[in-house]
């Protein structure tokens, strides 16, 4: 008898729950959200805090978040988008033009673009319409170990840029003393090795001709291109890079630079901090590490030694088929405030496409870092995007294999590299 009563009560409660369920769920709009940065805690924490803040202010909207690593996310999205099962909001980078080409992204013209840096909006503008919320931005920076530089008895010039000959001497001097001049590896990324060539080519050609080169409108056989690649190859031949360059992974290259065995320099995106400013036991640089940042060296025959690359990285986009465009726009606009930009700088310690004030940063380590970044970027003329963000298809694949990997590794001659790049277009 007691069991029957208990069963009856359970049935009533269950029935009430079933009846109440749809009503309760229907009260809130749920936005699905897939993001990279599962393991990059500063960025993830920032986004989670932003979501919590948005949900608190908009109790009728819930964000259902799924965190991924980048490759897994991209693979999942390719299938989900085809099947019409993609989330309302997802992570993307501006080089993924195939999303725009196929009409998968929502036109975000309605966002509060006044709070976004114009160059960041430009990076996400495709056929006149903006498609992405440019959260992360970065410049290509040349980091160095101040202690090792002192040990070599070399001083960085006041303008933070070595002349070509002085830089070559520096490389030889470090290599001669058994110090790897530059930590760099392409074991798990398609771009780090190319930083050497693309920054050199940008300076030698200037932004206009460099853009034409990447677009296939200036031949790779152009004498300026050949001379510049020869200069880069000469540095590699002088022992610029570690012998493990071809297999060294990005995280390992960080540790190679600041901890073991220690290198003089390291060329990387300014998101260096997202790994190096972690605790030392989590791959971060030693607490007493003397980090310096200088400009990429002047290039022989350069027309624009102040030219440098700026890129928009991690961003969020909206599914063109979302049933909740207004809610998505509201969510994105919640990021587009200067105080949110400042919070990003303070916590993530990487530049952002949201207008922000680096002067507001309170953390002394982050403040020092951004003052160094400001110094190297003073008077800079920017080219937007690294080559693999600008190129597509076969040129991108050949560039990755040849200019990113084989040329700096010394596995290919300059003539062969130029021939392969020319044939790729």
């Amino acid at each position: 008898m007691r069991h029957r009563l208990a069963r009856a009560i359970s049935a009533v409660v269950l029935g009430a729950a079933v009846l109440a369920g749809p009503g309760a769920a229907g009260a809130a709009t749920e936005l699905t959200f897939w993001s990279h940065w599962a393991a990059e805690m500063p960025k993830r924490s920032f986004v989670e805090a932003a979501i919590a803040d948005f949900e608190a202010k908009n109790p009728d909207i819930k964000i259902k978040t799924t965190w991924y690593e980048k490759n897994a996310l991209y693979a999942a999205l390719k299938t989900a988008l085809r099947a019409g099962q993609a989330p309302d909001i997802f992570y993307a980078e501006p080089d993924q033009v195939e999303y725009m080409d196929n009409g998968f992204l929502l036109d975000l013209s309605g966002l509060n673009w006044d709070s976004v840096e114009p160059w960041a909006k430009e990076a996400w503008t495709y056929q006149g319409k903006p498609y992405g919320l440019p959260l992360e931005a970065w410049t290509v920076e040349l980091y160095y170990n101040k202690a090792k530089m002192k040990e070599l008895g070399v001083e960085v010039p006041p303008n933070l840029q070595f002349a070509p000959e002085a830089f070559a001497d520096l490389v030889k001097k470090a290599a001669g003393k058994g110090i790897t001049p530059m930590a760099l590896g392409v074991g798990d990324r398609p771009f780090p090795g190319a930083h050497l060539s693309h920054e050199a080519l940008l300076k030698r050609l200037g932004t206009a001709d460099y853009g034409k080169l990447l677009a296939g409108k200036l031949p790779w056989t152009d004498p300026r291109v050949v001379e510049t690649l020869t200069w880069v190859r000469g540095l590699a031949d002088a022992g610029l890079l570690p012998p493990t360059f071809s297999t060294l992974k990005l995280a390992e290259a960080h540790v190679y630079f600041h901890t073991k065995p220690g290198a003089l320099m390291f060329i990387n995106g300014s998101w260096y901090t997202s790994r190096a400013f972690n605790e030392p036991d989590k791959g971060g640089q030693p607490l007493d590490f003397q980090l310096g940042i200088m400009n990429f060296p002047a290039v022989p025959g350069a027309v624009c030694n102040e030219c440098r690359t700026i890129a928009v990285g991690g961003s969020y986009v909206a599914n063109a088929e979302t049933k909740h465009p207004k809610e998505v726009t509201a969510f994105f606009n919640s990021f587009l405030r200067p105080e949110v930009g400042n919070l990003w700088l303070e916590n993530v310690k990487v530049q952002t496409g949201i207008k922000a004030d680096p002067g507001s940063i309170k953390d002394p380590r982050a403040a020092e870092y951004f003052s160094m970044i400001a110094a190297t970027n003073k008077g800079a003329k920017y080219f937007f995007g690294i080559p693999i963000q600008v190129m597509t298809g076969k040129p991108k694949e050949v560039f990755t294999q040849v200019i990113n990997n084989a040329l700096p590794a010394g596995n290919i001659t300059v003539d062969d590299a130029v021939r392969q790049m020319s044939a790729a277009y």
Partner: protein
Amino acid sequence: MAKAGRPAATDDGVRRPWGAILAFLLPALTVYMALTAYPAFRTLWNSFHVVLPRRETFVGLDNFVELAQDDIFWHAVRNTFVWAAASPLIEVTIATLLALALYAKVPGARFFRVAWFTPVLMSYVVVGILWMWIYNYDWGPINATLRALGLDGLARPWLGDPDTALPALILVTSWMWVGFNMVVMLAALHSLPREVIEAAELDNCGWGGKLVFIILPLVRPTLLNLVVLSFIGKMKIFDLVWITTKGNPLWSTETVSTYVYKRAFEWSTFDLGYPSTIAIVWFVIVMIAVLALTRAFRVRDKLEY
């Protein structure tokens, strides 16, 4: 005419229970049609189209013409053929020697049988990571040994050098699959007719003679099957390359499977037409190669027997 509900009569008067036959065949046929026949047909269809989300465009033989001029594809074909040709020879030769050693009951045979078979139980992911450590330039045991022997000049990033990356990966698959081949060979050896071997022994035939004139001819069908199986396996190799090198450096380890994946999921396009073309062409090439191998072996069989 058979009455409804009753089995139909055949020419020999036996009634076939078509209803039951259909009921038993239907699940398997459905699975086959849905998961094998349709995808295969769809891949063939795709190869003549540019297949983008929500739109398909017929392009005739354009994809095939482009493929014929695609030097990365031919790079991948060459690498895959080298792998598929070298691996069976290495694996089956070493496996035969190891199986003979176990058949001859060398000391510790039980331990060695387990030890040599163990690698095949591991996934390619684990094997890939393991060998990336072994090949590590700075602290991998291969380079450490070379340095300890004073052969520093021979130390190299084995997976980062275009000259050594493919041989290094071929060695890994050989290491992994020798154990499987060995076990199959051992089973074949144990199933040899005792009386033939004993007759040879009565004729004072030594170990070498027994091996060359009795054992190897008798296990030849097994050997040939292992060669064909290994060949087919290597023509499809993907996992190990993806874990270790992703086709780098300079496409020296690119295989057709990794290239198909790159074109389908890593190229800046949603087009599935071109990757389907690669898959179709490669399917035909593999089919021809396997038929040629089988035919070659069959011809030799006829000559011998």
